[in-house]
């Protein structure tokens, strides 16, 4: 493969406290040199990155690729391409497919399909419990051996605290985290949006913050009890942020996600029964949104992840309570983070790279998240403030379900390289 010289970009790599205008040389699938005015080796592709940010490849630890069983919504291949178009060099696929990924053969299928896709890297996860039923531990060791980077019953909680305790103990042999969707089903009662005056007005069953908070509190206690690694997915509540902040201060091993939709939107987006704003956990109040933003700022929510959840047009084209949860997010995440967080002065660019690359790599012990010499040549190049308009019709995902249609965002990916190979490049004028 030809060497690639990325010239004159602002290289931001928080893993080595680097933020300077530098050249980056990739060769043989690895980062081989960083410095000023590097010479292009013979045959190298030279890419002028003046005015652009060059950083370790972005990693999304929470995506639904729907394969097997939901190929009309997304496939591993289409999802990996959409990820690359969003500036991600790696994604972590959730196991709530049909059938669920709860055995080593299924984990191997996701891994091999991901390798064939030729987009972002695809890391599989396995279910915590057989069939994601929350009862009996799945073959976690076998799934780990097949390539699972974490276990999760995402989409559902493990309601039985005893089973969760066992999972947090059992994973320690493999040193992988248990990633948790926190929802007490007895409190959420099949609700379809945030509990509050908007739900009351619309006549929709609300999901109270407490449904999430009590489960976060429970699992933090179990993580403390067991010493297991806990990864809290898509935190949406002020209480959840506060609980995790306190737990981190006590030294509990926990990482946590913020999604772009939870830091950019509130339950106001559900007015007039907009199914594109239906997700679980739901969009919350302004106080919750502000707490999520503050959690990202101070690092309580150390990871930005999309919860990319594609659904077919027909499935969202239903009465609100009948429509499925979730939105696509891979191609809007970077733009939303740059606009809503960096653009508003909440975090600076190095912190953004930390939340979208370094911390995700650490949370799930993935390769990447760094441009240290010798590390994989997974690199994202993005424009920090170029304005563009979200047009779902241009998405590489098979689905179009986004509440951000028509949003004007500032900042977008320009080129995505995996192992030194360009897997996606923006059309430049």
């Amino acid at each position, binding site marked *: 493969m030809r060497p690639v010289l990325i010239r004159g970009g602002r290289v931001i790599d928080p893993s080595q406290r680097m933020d300077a205008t530098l050249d980056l040389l990739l060769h043989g699938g690895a980062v081989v040199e960083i410095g000023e005015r590097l010479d292009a080796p013979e045959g190298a592709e030279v890419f002028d990155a003046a005015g652009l940010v060059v950083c370790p490849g972005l990693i999304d630890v929470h995506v639904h690729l729907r394969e097997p069983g939901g190929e009309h919504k997304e496939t591993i291949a289409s999802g990996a391409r959409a990820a690359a178009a969003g500036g991600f060099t790696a994604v972590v696929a959730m196991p709530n497919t049909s059938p669920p990924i709860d055995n080593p053969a299924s984990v191997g299928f996701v891994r091999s399909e991901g390798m064939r896709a030729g987009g972002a890297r695809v890391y599989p996860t396995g279910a915590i419990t057989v069939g994601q039923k929350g009862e009996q531990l799945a073959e976690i060791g076998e799934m780990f051996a097949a390539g699972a980077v974490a276990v999760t019953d995402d989409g559902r909680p493990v309601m039985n605290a005893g089973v969760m305790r066992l999972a947090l103990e059992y994973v320690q042999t493999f040193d992988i985290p248990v990633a948790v969707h926190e929802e007490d089903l007895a409190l959420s009662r099949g609700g379809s949006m945030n*509990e*509050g*005056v908007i*739900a*009351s*007005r*619309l*006549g*929709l069953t*609300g999901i*109270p913050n407490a449904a999430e908070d009590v489960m976060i509190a429970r699992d933090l206690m179990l993580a403390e009890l067991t010493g297991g690694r806990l990864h809290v997915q898509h935190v949406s509540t002020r209480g959840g942020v506060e609980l995790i902040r306190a737990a981190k201060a006590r030294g509990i091993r926990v990482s946590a996600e913020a999604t772009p939709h939870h830091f950019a939107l509130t339950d106001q987006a559900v007015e*007039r*029964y907009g199914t594109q704003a239906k997700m679980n956990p739901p969009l919350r109040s302004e106080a919750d949104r502000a707490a999520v933003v503050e959690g990202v700022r101070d690092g309580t929510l150390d990871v930005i992840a999309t919860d990319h959840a594609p659904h077919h047009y*027909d499935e969202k*084209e*239903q*009465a*609100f*309570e*009948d429509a499925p949860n979730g939105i696509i997010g891979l191609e809007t995440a970077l733009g939303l983070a740059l606009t809503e967080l960096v653009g508003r002065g909440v975090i600076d660019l190095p912190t953004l790279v930390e939340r979208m690359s370094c911390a995700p790599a650490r949370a799930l012990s993935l390769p990447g998240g760094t441009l240290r010499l010798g590390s994989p040549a997974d690199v994202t190049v993005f424009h920090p403030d170029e304005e563009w308009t979200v047009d779902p019709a241009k998405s590489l995902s098979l689905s179009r379900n986004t509440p951000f249609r028509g949003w004007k965002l500032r900042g977008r990916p320009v080129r995505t390289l995996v192992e030194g190979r360009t897997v996606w490049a923006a059309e430049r004028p």
Partner: protein
Amino acid sequence: MAHPAGPYLGKDLLGLEELSAEQITAILDTAEPFKEISERPIKKVPVLRGKTIVNAFFENSTRTRISFEFAEKRLSADTVNFSASGSSVSKGETLVDTAKNLEAMRIDMVVIRHGASGSARFLAERIDSNVVNAGDGRHEHPTQGLLDLLTIRDHFRRIAGLKVCITGDILHSRVARSNLWGLRKLGAEVAVCGPRTLLPRDVEEMGVTVFRRIEDAIEWADVLNVLRLQLERMQGGFVPSLREYNRVFGVTRARLDRAGRDILILHPGPMNRGVEIDSDVADGPHSVILQQVTNGVAIRMAVLYLLAGGAPERAEAAKTGGGE
């Protein structure tokens, strides 16, 4: 097949929350001349002659469906009734496909009752025909709210300044929401009273007072609108038993007597006698429960007439085939 939006209502009647006080008053005023039609020996006028209306009831209903049907037939509309069971819906057809198929047969209006909140709006945004919400999930039941307003106005000659308490299962009630918006817009003070398990979260932010005890509500109110306690609420654990519900929250003669003044009693029906309301209250001198039913037909006539492009001041003339 575009329909001209009436000057007083938009294309659809989806809820009272989105109507202005003037629009609500216009509907009530329009209902007045229509009341008399139902008292005639020959209960038919040509107001909606040639109009085709589909009554699409995806959820069971007796009185609302019959009331709409009477209103339509007495205005000479052609009507088709449609229920979920035994139709293409039970074969898995989606709501939007059902609606588009109905519209392809060139209908003018759809009256929809559906179990999902927001379903009436969903339909209205996808078809050109006028849509009348006859109850969508726990959201709104605007014609019920309007007929309650008309009944209260008939009695007091006004709405503004009255104190109206809605009692019972507010959480699951579309009637409660339509009443709440309609009453507030016309200047009434509104309260709710029921077990906290059956009150919506942050209901105070909807501009109502909350009474925890029915005795306090009765002490305060000029009007009680007593909602039906559905039996499944007990199975859902919201209340321990119907017996206890009656003892703690029931509108009883003894409680009303203690207030020492006349309180108007409404109930949207069907009643659970001896649960939320005692028989001697329901059948008592201050109950207007059957007048609500009578007014329901006139209100629905008024709504259909206005959505079809009619004007309130021409309603009287329209009854004899003029005014259009």
